[in-house]
Structures are given as C-alpha cells and as structure tokens.
C-alpha cells in the first residue's frame, strides 16, 4: 500500500513536471519566436490582423496547416509555382509582391514564431517573455544640481527662520513693555495689527533679515539656473518629418537596431538613412504627405536634415556599443520610453554628474565575458559587493575625455 502511494506520488510529480516543462518549453519557443518575428517579420507583418506590407498574422495557425506555413516561409515562390490556390490568391491579392524567403528557418523556429503570434493575441497584456538580462539597477534620474549646496542652503534657511522668530519675540516683548501703558482698548484688532506691522517694518533687524533671506533665495535660484545652462532635458524639437517612434517602436515593435544600425557596433547609433525607410515605405503608406518628403529627398538627392536631440559636447567621447553590446544596457535606460513618444525628447540630463552616478551604481556586466574574469576574481577577494563600473576605472578622466 505504502509502496503504491509512493508510486502514485511519483507519478503525480512526474506528470506535474512534464506539464511544467512543456509549458516552459512553449514559453521559450515563444520567446525565441518573438525575437525572430521582430527582427525578420515585423517589417512587413503585424501580429494582429492589421495589414501592413503583407497580411496580418493573427490566427494564422488556424487558417493554414503548419506544413504549408513551413513550406511557404522556406520558399514562397515554389508554393505559388506549385499552383496552390490559397497561395496564388494571396499573391494576387497583394499585387504580386513576393515575400522574402527564409530558407534558414528551422521548423521549430517557425513554430516558435507562430507560438508567439498566438500568445500575443491570446494575452495582449502579458509582459514579453525572456526580457534581456537585467543590467543592474537603472540609474534614477539624478538631481543634477549639487546636493551639497542644497543641504547648505536649507540649513541656512532654518537658522534664519529661528533667528527671525527669536528677533520677533524680542521685538514683541519689548513693544509690549513700552506700550503696556498706552494700550488703547478702543483701537480695533485690525488697527493694532497694522500698527504692529508698521513697527515691525521699521525695525532694522527685521529688514536685514528679509534682505539676507531674499539674497539667499536669489542666490540659489541663480546657481540653479547656472547649472541648467546647456542642459536640455526635455528638449523635443520638431523634426522635418513627423516620424512617430510611438507608432514604429511602440505599436509595430520594430527593433531599434533595425533602423539605428550602429547601436551595437559603433560609437554612434546612427540616424537611419532614407533607404532604410524605403525597405517598408516603398509599399506602405506611399501617399502620406510625410512619406512623400522622403521620396522628394531621394528624387532631389538632398539628404534629410533631422534635428539632433541628444547633443554631447565634442570633448566627451561616448560609445554606444560599449554600453549596449558590452554593458548589456537597454536603450530606454538613457533614452526613456521611446516607444511611447510621438516626438522624441531628451529624457536624461546627459550631464557628467549623470554619467558618473550611473558608473558608480551599475554592476559590470561581467558574466560570460572573459575580458572581466580576472578583474572579478581580484575584486571578489577583498570585497563582498559586486564589481561596479567605478571599480575598474569607470570614473577616470580618459575613459571619456581624450
């Protein structure tokens, strides 16, 4: 009996485990599918039923059998040539625009993509699975004007208020003493208040106190304003073409790297060239007046003059690939939620203090990178905290200035 129970328990456990692992596998497929979809398909297909260049893919797994889809993805022209009715109808419906073949996708990968499409339609609110590895705490938007100065000013303010109260109480008691005799009960409350106010205004100590207070507040305002010179946080200039990141990066979830080609490779992320726009817009929304501007630029051979939003001074060297590729940071760490911006604005202050703060707080993305192995080893010998950027020279001048 006892034995049987155990077997049952074992069976139950293994069953649970099986279910769990299958779900996990499915989730993993969907996660891989998401990446593949965004990098390869999203330029022409939406995961909803909206038609972009090609048909929306919502419900594709119900519309067509999986074998057909695999064949189609591997070589659409062959399927059309085989006389398949569905394929030919589709081909004609989309003005005989052939789909790019993806012969390298394995069946499992294609299934993953479908799993992702299904999952995204089933639970649109579900968070995307398999988020990129967390790259340490995102730096909070730093209070750029010096904290030290503020503490000092607040302290002074408190002292001033205390002095003021003390002075007022002295003034009050003195005036009570001197005026005790001639207190005139006939005078109304308001008259007395105005008299008191007059005597207060005539008092030199109070005057000095007020002047000092005004000076202090004025000084702080000036210093704050001076710190703000050259900082363009919130700068959101109008661009020559009303390009919406909200639409492209938000709604259609096109990977940043698709347009900003240098972001994992080079120093600059690069504003995309017009030919990248044309990958999609040679078919989509050609008549839109905004997109016509791109056509005109190409016809006239005149490059589009975008307005630069993020301006680092020439004396600071910043390399995107060090932060995205090596550091594993996500774009939004510095640029904010671009996918929600209709017009791009500068979210971070981009001051040196802001850089330094992040370098102080961020752990080095050392895992699996042999460059850091020895450094981590040496660091862990006499420290319990994880290796921060500042521990490997991240605060040094010539990391950014040369």
């Amino acid at each position: 009996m006892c034995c049987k129970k155990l077997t049952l328990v074992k069976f139950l456990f293994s069953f649970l485990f099986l279910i769990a692992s299958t779900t996990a596998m499915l989730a993993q497929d969907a996660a891989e599918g998401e990446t593949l979809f965004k990098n390869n398909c999203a330029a022409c297909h939406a995961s909803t039923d909206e038609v972009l260049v090609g048909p929306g893919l919502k419900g594709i797994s119900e519309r067509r059998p999986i074998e057909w889809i695999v064949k189609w993805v591997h070589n659409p022209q062959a399927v059309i040539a085989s006389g398949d009715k569905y394929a030919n109808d589709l081909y004609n419906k989309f003005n005989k625009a052939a789909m790019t073949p993806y012969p390298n996708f394995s069946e499992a990968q294609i299934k993953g993509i479908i799993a992702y499409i299904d999952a995204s339609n089933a639970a649109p609110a579900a968070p995307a699975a398999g988020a990129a590895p967390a790259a340490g705490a995102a730096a909070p938007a730093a209070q750029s004007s010096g904290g030290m100065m503020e503490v000092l000013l607040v302290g002074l303010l408190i002292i001033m208020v205390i002095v003021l109260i003390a002075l007022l109480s002295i003034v009050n008691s003195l005036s009570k003493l001197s005026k005790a005799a001639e207190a005139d009960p006939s005078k109304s409350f308001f008259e007395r208040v105005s008299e008191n106010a007059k005597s207060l205004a005539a008092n030199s100590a109070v005057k000095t106190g007020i002047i000092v207070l005004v000076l202090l507040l004025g000084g702080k305002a000036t210093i704050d304003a001076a710190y703000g010179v050259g900082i363009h946080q919130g700068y959101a200039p109008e661009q020559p073409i009303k390009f919406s990141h909200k639409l492209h990066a938000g709604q259609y979830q096109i990977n940043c790297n698709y347009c900003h080609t240098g972001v994992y490779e080079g120093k600059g992320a690069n504003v995309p060239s017009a030919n990248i726009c044309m990958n999609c817009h040679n078919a989509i929304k050609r008549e839109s007046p905004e997109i016509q501007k791109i056509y005109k630029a190409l016809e006239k051979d005149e490059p589009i003059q975008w307005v630069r939003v993020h301006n680092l001074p020439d004396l600071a060297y910043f390399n995107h690939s060090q932060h995205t590729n090596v550091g594993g940071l996500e774009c939004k760490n510095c640029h904010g939620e671009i996918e929600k911006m209709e017009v791009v604005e500068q979210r971070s202050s981009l001051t040196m203090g802001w850089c330094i703060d992040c370098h102080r707080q961020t752990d080095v993305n050392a895992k699996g990178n042999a460059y850091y192995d020895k450094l981590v080893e040496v660091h862990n010998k006499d420290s319990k905290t994880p290796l921060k950027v500042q521990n490997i020279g991240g605060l040094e001048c010539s990391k950014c200035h040369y």
Partner: protein
Amino acid sequence: MENSNKRYWKGIEELTNEPSFVKNIHNEFGNMPSETDAKGDSLVDGAGTHRRDFLKMLGFGVAAVSLAACESPVKNTIPYLNKPEDVEPTIANWYASTYTDGGDYASILVKTREGRPIKIEGNKSSSISKGVLSGRAHASVLSLYDNEKLKGPQAAGKATDWTSLDKDFTAKLAEVAAKGGQIRIVSNTILSPTTKKVIADFAAKYPTTQHITYDANPAYGLTQAHGGVLPNIDFSQAKTIVSVGADFLGSWIAPTEFAAQWAITRRVSSEKGGKKDMSRHYQFETILSNTGANADYRASYKPSQEGLVAVALYNAVAKLTGAATIAGASVKVDHLEKAAKDLVASKGASIIVAGSNDPEVQKIIAATNALVGAYGTTINTGLAVNYRQGNDMAMANFIKEAGAGSIAAVIFYNANPVYNHPMGAALAAALPKVGLSLATNDRADETASLCQFIAPDSHFLESWNDAEPKAGFYSLTQPTISTIFKTRQAQSSFLTWAGLSADFAAYLESNWEKNILKGGKVAWNNALHDGVFEPTTATVSSASPSVDVNASAAAISKAYTASSTGLEITVYEKVGLGTGSQANNPWLQEFPEPVSKACWDNYAAISQPTATKLKLKQGDVVEVSAKGYKVSLPVLVQPGQAQDTIAIAIGYGRTKAGKSADGVGVNAYPFISEINGACVGTCTQGVSITATGDTKDIAQTQTHQTVMARQAVVQETVLADFAKDAKAGSFTPRVKTSEGEKDATDLTLWNGHEYNNHAWGMVIDLNTCTGCSACVVSCNAENNVPVVGRQEVINRREMHWMRIDRYYSSDAEVEDLKGLEIASDNPEVVFQPMLCQHCNNAPCETVCPVLATTHSTEGLNQMTYNRCIGTRYCANNCPYKVRRFNWFRYFQTDDFDFNFNNDLGRMVINPDVTVRSRGVMEKCSMCVQRIQAGKLEAKKEKRRPVDGEIQVACAQSCPTNAITFGDMNDPASEISKLLLVEKEGRAYHVIEEINVKPNISYLKKVRNKDAKKEA
C-alpha cells in the same frame, strides 16, 4: 654618466654656453607675450594687449557669452540618403593600397572614416615594405586635402572643362602627329607596369612619342654600373657596412626598407647566450647625415675627393685580397684602412654603398663589392629593382632638343623639371619654343604654369593604379575617396587622348587578370584585398657587373682632386621634405630634420672651423654663388661636416607650390653639376660665400628642452664591453642617507599604484632608433597635433608630442675645453625619442591645482583638456619637458594659416581625438583612443586583448621596430618578455634618480667600436 667621461650636448650654443642659450635654459616655452615686446601687429609676434583693449574684449566677451547662452543653436544630424552597405558611420574602414611618389614606394593600409581617408599605416602583407612607412608616406594623406591644388583642368591659364580640353588637345596632337613632329612624355620614375602600358598605347597612336624618365634624386650612376637597373640591396645579411656618402637610413633610394634591414643587424640582447654581435657600420661622407649619425666609425671628405675615396677604398681592399690596385691620387681619410680590413675579414657578409650619382664612382664601388663577395649575398643582381629608372643623359638631351626647337609637343606627367632639374632654367626658357605643352601636375607649379594645358591628375588616394617595385612583386592602388576636385587621373587622360576607353579601372583589372594574376575575378578580388601580389620568390644571382676599373679610375682622376683648398657646395636631400614634391605639406615643413633639428627652411650648413675662418656665425645671412647662380640664406653651424664645404638641401625654394611652401628656403637644384654624364649633387669650382650683414633665425628645435644638467639621460657603451657585462656603461643612481647609501629607487614619497587590469608601457631601443622621425609625423596625424609655423617654432612653442632628441657627445674630459672643441668637429650622435614618460610617481599630477592631469588604473598619465585652466605648473614640474601648451588657438585662425584653417584641410582630423583649444596643456596620451578602441573590440568578442592588437601610432610606424608597446601585466606580451631579459641589462629609465618610475624604459645604446684602451 658618472661612469663615463662623456659630455653630451644638444647644440653648439649649449657647448659654448652662448648667452641666448643660457637665457632660455629655464624658459621652456620662450617668453610670455608681454606688453614690452609688442612690436608686431600679429598675435604671433607677441601679443601686445593694452589695458583698454583688454577691457573692451572683456566687455564684448561677457556680452557675447551671455547672448550665446540664451539659446543654444539647433544642431542637425544628416544621415546618408542611400547608405553604402559597407560604410557604418563612426566605424573606420580600412583599404589596402599603395603609396608611390616617383620612385618612393610603400604598401599601405588607408583608414577611412565616413568615406574620408584620415590615416595611413603600413601593410604587413608586403614582403618589401613590411608594414613600415616613411614620414613622407604618413604625411601624404594631408596632401590629399591640399586646398591649393587645381580645382579642374586649365587651358592657357584659364579654367576649362574636360570635354573642351580633350577636344582642343587631341586636335593639336593630331596636327603635330600629321606633321611628324616629335612628342615627348616627361616623367619621374614610374613604378606602375599598367601605366607604362597606357603610355605605350599612347605612343602607338602617336608614333613619334618618346618617354623620358628622370629623377630629382637620381641613382643613374648606380643603374649604369649595373647594366641599367638597380640591383637588390639587403643590409640584413651584412656584418660590415661601408657607406661612401650614401644616406641610406635617411634619404638614399629606399631608406625605410634599408633601415629595417640595418636594424636587424644592430639588435642585441642582454639575455645570457643572447645575440651579442652586431654589424659594424663605417660612414664616409661630407655632411653629417642621418646615416652618419648612426655609424660606428665616421670620417668626412670634401666632395671633390669623393671619387678618389672610392679608389682608395678599392685599393685598400685590393691590397688585402691580392687583386691589382688602380691608379689614383691618394686621399687621407680616417678609418679607411680599418674599414677595408673589416670588409675583407667578413667577406661574403660585407657591403659597400655609395651615394654618388657618378657612374664611374659606382663602377669602382661595384668592383670593390665584387672583391669582398657582396654579390649573391648582400647585393643581388638577379632581382631588378625599379625604384629609380631616370636617365640623366636622356633628360639633358631632351632639354637641349627643346632649346633647339626640335620638339613639337611635350607632356609632363607629374614632373616638375623646371624646379627640380639642374637645367630647369634652360627648360623654362625653351618651353615657349615647344609648340604644344601639357602638364598633368596637380597644381600650376613651376613647370605646369608654363604649359598651355594643365590636365590635373588625381591624388593617389583618389586613383586606381599599380606598382612593381621589384621585378615580380606587384602592388595595387585603389581609390579610397571619390575625387575632391574635378581632376582626372592621368592614365584616363592618356587613354582618352589615345582614342581608347577612359575607364582606367577596367583597363587595370583586365591587364592584371590577363598578364599578372593570370586568373579571374576571384584572384583580382584577393589581390585587391591584400594590396599586394607576390607570386615569386626572388631569384638570387651572384653575378657581378663587369667593370673596367682602370678606365673608371682614369675618368675619376680627371674629375676629382685629392687636395682642393677652395670652398665647395654639396647638395643633399632632407629626410623630411625629400625632393620637395610634397613641399606644400605643413606637417613636412614642420618636421625637425633628424640631425640639424631645423624646420621650415634650408640653410648653408658649414662646420665650426669653417665658420670661424669665414668669420660667420649661426644665423648670418650669406650669399652663396657658383655657376652664375646666387642664393641668400642663413648659416647653420653643423658639427661633423667636412671643412670648407657648404651643404644646402634640395626641396626648398618653391615658388608656385602653395602657401606653406612658397618662399621657404631657396632652390638648390641649380648647384647640381654634370660629372661623367650624370647629375652629381656637388659644385666644386668657383664657389663664393659673402656675408650680407643680415641675420635670420633658423627654426631649430634642438635646444628647446634641455637636460638641466641631469645625469644618465642617454646611456651607451661599446660592443666589446657589453659582451662582457650587459650592465657596462649603465648608470645606477645611489643616494646617501643617514642609514648609509641606498638605491635611489628605494626611497619614495609616493604610495604607488596597483594595476589589476592592464599596465601599458613602452620600451625604446636606442640601438635601433635611427632618428628618422617617421613616428613624429605619424603621431601628428593620429593625434591632431597642430602646425604652429616658423615663427612659433623660433618662439620655442612647437606642439609635437613626440620629439627625437639628438645629442652630440665626445670622450673628452669636461674640463678639457680644447679637447671638446676638437671633438665637436666629428661628434658621436645619439638619438633619443622623448615623449610623456607616463610616470607612476608623476610630478605633474601632484601640482595640478584642478586635477586636470591624473593617473589611470592602467598606468596612463591622463590629460583632461576641458578641466585644464592653463597654470602650466605641470610643465614646470615635468622633468622630461614633454608637455606642450596651447598659447594660441591653432585652428580657424588666420595667424596659423595651415591645414587647420580651411574646411578641406580639417578633413584629415581624427574624429576620435579632441582638437585642443587655447590655454590648455597637452602631451602624449599613449594613443588612449586606440587603447580604448582595442579594449572595446576585445570586450565585444568576450576575450582579453591579444598582444600586438593594440598599437600606438609611433610604435606602429617605426621602420626599425625600435619602439615596443604593450601590456606589462600580460606575461606573454613582447614588452614583458623584453623587459624580463633587459631588466638586468640595457633597460633604464631616464633620470632614474628622481624616482618618478616612468612606464617608458629605454635600452642603452651599444656602439660596435673597439673597447677603449686602458689609460
């Protein structure tokens, strides 16, 4: 140098303690601009700022700044319309190509950023240039952005377009051809086989065409002695090297290639059982050349004796080998017998080279080489070398024909003989008699401006081309930028005029696929990728040319005399500027000549005794005349030069080259004489020199930084001592303390640094550094070092991060003034590259009030320009005097009208390095931008950087590998291994006794001299 009696000095003024020198000893940057020296109206002459001006400027400045701060300007970002697939903004692209300038050759890699070439490095795939470059090759990228080149074709001095030029010119050519008129194409050496084919096609269409080749720095004599072609010379096999007037490390034929070979024979190791032998180098010459400065034994002769020196050397060798001697007046030259003895002793590993262009002298030298068994070992006649193909006789003949009016048409293919041929004036007079003339020169220079048409050729970085530097060794040039101006490469022009398709790229490819690669598109793409195609292993031939030595000796006896008493002129080529083809390149103009350390000028160099005899001193302007040609130029006192000789450099005195070159120095080409049918750079008859009473400062950098009586700045020993004890001649500083004597490095005020990651360092071998200064130009290009101009160099404010200190020395006692004076007639020379030493206990860091200079966790001494407030405390506290201060804003300022002052010139700026503004310090950063980029590349690939992957600009460009850069924390790196061996041998730190612990070590110089006899 407590261990030796040597005294080192940097210039005559230091040796004689002249007042001007003493005054400036403590004045690293020259005088501060002050009110009292306000005499000039330009900033450069000393800014005379008055109080009122100052207040005005202050008021205006405050107003301007507050206005500017109100609203920051909108900055645009302009992406490509159609991005080329292989160009990614901010990522550099590299292309293999070939640098050729006449017969100068180097296989190169061109670094382009966003489609513009910004730096040239050597291509290691080439077995000939082996990845090293001369200073001129480095500087050639700036010549691409020369604003003073022609913007398009010209006819009769007026701008025209290509179609009408082609129409007019071909019509006239056809007219000439119809009448059977003689057509000449005049060029310098052409290394390109395909270009020669194009010229042959042109000649096929116009059969009266003859191609005349000449060189401004000819080796006609050497080719004549070897049956019309240059033999292949290989110093790397030599044990005894004798040079009779050949500056083979500085300017003779292929100096970087020779320097690399020479360095192999000069490298020694302190390791037990390591290499303890080196070649012995004798130099006999008139001037103190860059090569002479590196020789073990050196002696001087007068130009009129040159042929007889060759004869004497032949006779000395012949006596030892039992061959018959030849007739010739005997000349007395020190060390000649000794040289002959060594040559014979190392038979089969000996080589004699001569710089003379006289074919008879070269024949005698060839015969001497045959006696010492050089052919087949150090000289190979089986491998034809194409570096110099000029025919002096043919060129002289052409000029005579042109003068006689028998030439109907001439095309100057990138040649400027009016300037750089001794008979240039005659040619200028003859050109109007030539019916039709055209030049493909890139600017309206001395020759082109006299021609009816100018069809400007594109720069080599804009062109397709190829080269065959040595027979069977090919190399390709590909364009790395589209043409900046409306130029057209000359080959396309020739093809157009010959009535063929003008597409030279297709022509080149088909010629290569058919005749060179004998393969298809794949082979072509591979060759283009590699830049070189070297299918052959060179054949070695030990055949020596047959020479009638007696006939040559007779010819020499007629042309030379053993004892002349008069003044003589010798004309030489400078290491930096060369023949003057790139004279309008400000980097080359500001290149301090290795020996004289002078820039922005040529001058009449004379020895101290000659100066004393003629009652002249440095800076006196003299008029030198000979052969009816007169020039005025300042005197420079040059120790080591032959008595009663005046040395003048070619390459200067351009009149139509551009802003940087025009009026700088004087033209020395007309002093070149014809001896035995060749252009020989001497003038031995009727030379006179008279003082004009004027003076002119020469922009010399040599004594700008002094050693302040410090010890052990340079260390040296002789080979025999070194073989016994690797520490011989080394200086170990000791200090006396209350606890007895201690090593200076044991006492310290500092806490030191710990380097967990990298520890960058450098080792510089003084034994192989020839002083050629290619590193200086490379550093300028990499780090956006500004050009400051002649007056600012005189004001001691040059900005070079890397300088090559040149020390003279002698064995005489410090007190023995007489001995010192004699010694200065033929001093020993040491070259020492000096740059920021990146001290671990850096004195500059401790005195900076604003922490603008700090230490990194990788051992670098960092300089933060945007933090610097310009107190110059750091420079005052720097023991090595390597910090340079930006006294002015050197960009976008008309006072410094060089490449930084025009949009085109600024295209060469390295976008990864800040352009420094006025009022900040700067110095060597150890190419931190390259270190950062290299580390990033490794991090992206999740690995540690590999040794050699990260290279600094100077180390990468060094022809002799004298500079080793690397990570001293990586035990597998070359620098770690080298230091491990040399720590107890040659390695030392400069001014070790002050214990600043530099990250740069030097390796002591070893001379292959006999050990001193015990006194």
